[in-house]
């Protein structure tokens, strides 16, 4: 079937099998391998992307379901000049990743809340990411990064110097 996706702002016309998963189309056809497949049954959240601004599990979404829609992946978070989004920056500063495999999914899950301009406390941040699995970090860093990024995006905390060492 022929579909049209707007992926990270670019219009893409594709011929795909009806049964092909959005995750596979993003990774294989479009080369956007930042989206990770961790379980392929919708539990771990590593494959989270945005479709029309909403976080979805691309391992449970057929590519044809995204026809005519806007898809956003982790590759689109940093600015064109490479400047990291405050959430990406906070993930590094809070040591919210080790192997990095689950990281794109956590970023895409937390992004709307971080961008909403409302500072999150620790409890709300912990709840926010509870639908994603991370096996390395024990979650404290991830929770801390979401708290920090939400505060920065809300203007409630200054962005840290990129090179500052904590």
């Amino acid at each position: 079937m022929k579909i049209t996706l707007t992926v990270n702002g670019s219009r893409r016309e594709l011929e795909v099998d009806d049964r092909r998963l959005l995750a596979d189309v993003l990774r294989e056809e479009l080369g956007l391998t930042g989206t990770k497949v961790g379980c392929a049954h919708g539990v771990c959240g590593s494959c989270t992307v945005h479709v029309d601004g909403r976080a979805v599990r691309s391992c449970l979404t057929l590519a044809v379901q995204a026809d005519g829609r806007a898809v956003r992946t982790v590759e689109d978070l940093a600015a064109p000049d490479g400047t990291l989004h405050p959430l990406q920056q906070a993930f590094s500063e809070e040591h919210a990743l080790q192997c990095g495999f689950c990281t794109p999914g956590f970023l895409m899950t937390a992004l709307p809340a971080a961008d909403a301009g409302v500072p999150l406390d620790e409890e709300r941040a912990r709840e926010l990411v509870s639908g994603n699995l991370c096996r390395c970090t024990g979650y404290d860093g991830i929770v801390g990064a979401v708290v920090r990024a939400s505060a920065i995006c809300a203007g409630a905390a200054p962005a840290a110097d990129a090179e500052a060492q904590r």
Partner: protein
Amino acid sequence: MSAVEEAREEQAAPGLIGARVRRREDGRMVTGAARYVADVELPRCCEAAFVRSAVAHARIAAVDVEAARAAPGVLAVLTAADLAAVRPLADMLEVESIKTPRPPLAADRVRYVGEPVAVVIAEDRYAAEDAAELVAVDYDELEPVLDVEAAIAGAPLLHDHVPDNVYFRTQFRSGGTDEAFAAADLVVSRALHVNRQLASSMETRGVVAQADPDGLLTVWLSSQAPFQQRYLLALALGLPESRIRVVVPDVGGAFGPKDFVFPEDLCVAHAALTLGRPVRWIEDRQENLMAGSHAKEQKLHVELAFAADGRLLAMRGRFVGDTGAFAYSGPAGLVDVMFSAQSLPGPYVVPAYDYDVLGVLTSKTPVAPYRGVGITAAQTARELLLDEAAERLGIDRVELRRRNLLGDEPATSITGQEYDGGSYATSLERALERIDWAGFPARQAAARAEGRHLGIGVSPFVEGTSLGTLAQLQSGFPMPSHDHAWATVDLTGTVAVGVPTCSHGQGHATAFAQVAAEVLGVGVDDVRVVERDTEASPWGMGTYASRSAVFGGGAVLKAARLLRERILAVASLLLEAPPEALVLEGGFAGIAGVPEARIPLAGIAGAAHFDPGVRAALGESGLRVSVFHDSPPAYSNGCIAVEVEVDAELGTVRLLRTVAVEDCGTMLNPTIVEGQVRGGLVQGIGAALLEHAVYDDAGQPLTTTYMDYLVPRSTDVSAIEVDHLVSPSPRTLGGMKGMAEGSSIAAPAAVLNAVADALSPYGFRVERLPLGPHAVWEGLRAAGTA
């Protein structure tokens, strides 16, 4: 070695070793630019899908692949007959009975659900999976062997040459144990069934193989030990090592099982060699949970003997490991039970000890090492019994531990493990302080007045690390160790170090750069760390058993120091000053106190390359140095304390406070250390409360999705406070001790003791893991209350 110093952030040393340098790996990982094995792109790459045994134990009567071969997009369907030239995975350990050769594909018999029977290679995974469903396998079913005690007691043999299904049996008698038990004022004992678990890294297994026309087989593997794997691949495929290159891309977690070569890897490599096209296999989660590798299940029976004053007089233990259908890899099967047996004494003085160890085969997925291996089981049994003994002796449970803890000086355990000293008592006291142990009785009483059940538990640990030749010998089964590093300065003045370890989330490219940068007086960004490629990095055992800080960090320290000498030798010639008058800082070699007399590293490298006099003075290797590194054992220590609330009606456990005190000697990067502590601790909480690989009575695995096999989520745990003590090892280069497993080793006991404490009014007793709601409910019912 009694100096225990604070290492709080504000007191961190000014050098780069021990600094909280932000990880250089993060940039690519937060932008989606990191490349894992599934992201390796090769032209004309095809994909594999496996046909797996649907039954636990059977003879294979027939395999019909004709329909699959005719399916669209299929390039090949391989069965055992097609892989006759590939040798089964054999064991590197020289213990004859554990040799249960594991074929790439089952030939005439299957021994666990999920065992590979055939493999389909097709244009893409969709076509491969479609065709795999068309493969028809006829099974003549045999009785499955699902329990270790039954396996020993007359069950069918899984391998005809392994009597009683016992592939490994050993014992230890220290002398004096029976006498000590006879004279004891109290003996406590516990039979504990430790749950079957999975490492469950977020990235599953994966392999991509490509054969070049000129005869080089390149294998991209999600791995922890590329050089070991190259050797195992060479043995199985019948190729010289020089014709195999193993490349490890970014690795999405491992925690132990990715040390070895698996049957699927052999099939994919063979297919790439015979088809002339690259072949990829990325394990899916269901395959991973069913047949990737399991871990840790064992039945143990432990007894402790005490004097009335609380002194521990002796221990006894029987450890029976449930290895699954193959003892391959022997280290995998043996680490669980042998490490359990050897590490039962832990951080305590134990005058006498007897143990028996059995490694037993069952019709389950074979086990592999997983973080904390058998040490967790021993720690859990011992710490549960210490709480019970304290209650029965009428001694406070912390006081009982204090009376038996080792002193801070190096000591040899009764099992022959050479501890290098630590902060055994101090770490306990620090953990108590951080969790406000003293204030707990009031908190508990207040909660009980409201009908709520709070409990608190503590679990001091030692963690055997630095698994080199000697540590491996002391662990109970010898396996030599071999690691190298190299270091060099290039013509533009930047440094490269080749390391023998295999980072899979531990931030080695940052931490080891810190080590080299400090020694060589350059910035962290001026050091490139070369790893994970058998054609570029130096030979090494890889990253497992918390060995990397000692072996990778130590080897880099050694190489960097040697390179520093070489650099200063060149500078000495060029500046006409003795090496002892020279300093290396800011990327320059210069004469101390004479700022204008200095040469940039690029100039040093240029002279070393092209100045005939300098080159001659440096000798054959010039500015590229190479070192070998082995290390004696090192033992980290620490203490975990947790406070929980148990809902006695629902059987649920909520973590209220979690404290980890860690002493791993010299830290390379405290931020990375803390990340490891937290991650290990949460895995330990999963082991205690959630994680359980379950089989039904027919040997069918029931936990093959993440909806059934539960790993902890952010809301299943509390924030974790981490505190450090620093007792540098007197035995390792740089004073580093390995770490990353201690918190996973100690957390289950802390959690379980806290639950038992919360439910102490009911006489609740822990006898199996995990302690999920149903187990809590059953335990309460057994105690006669629910």
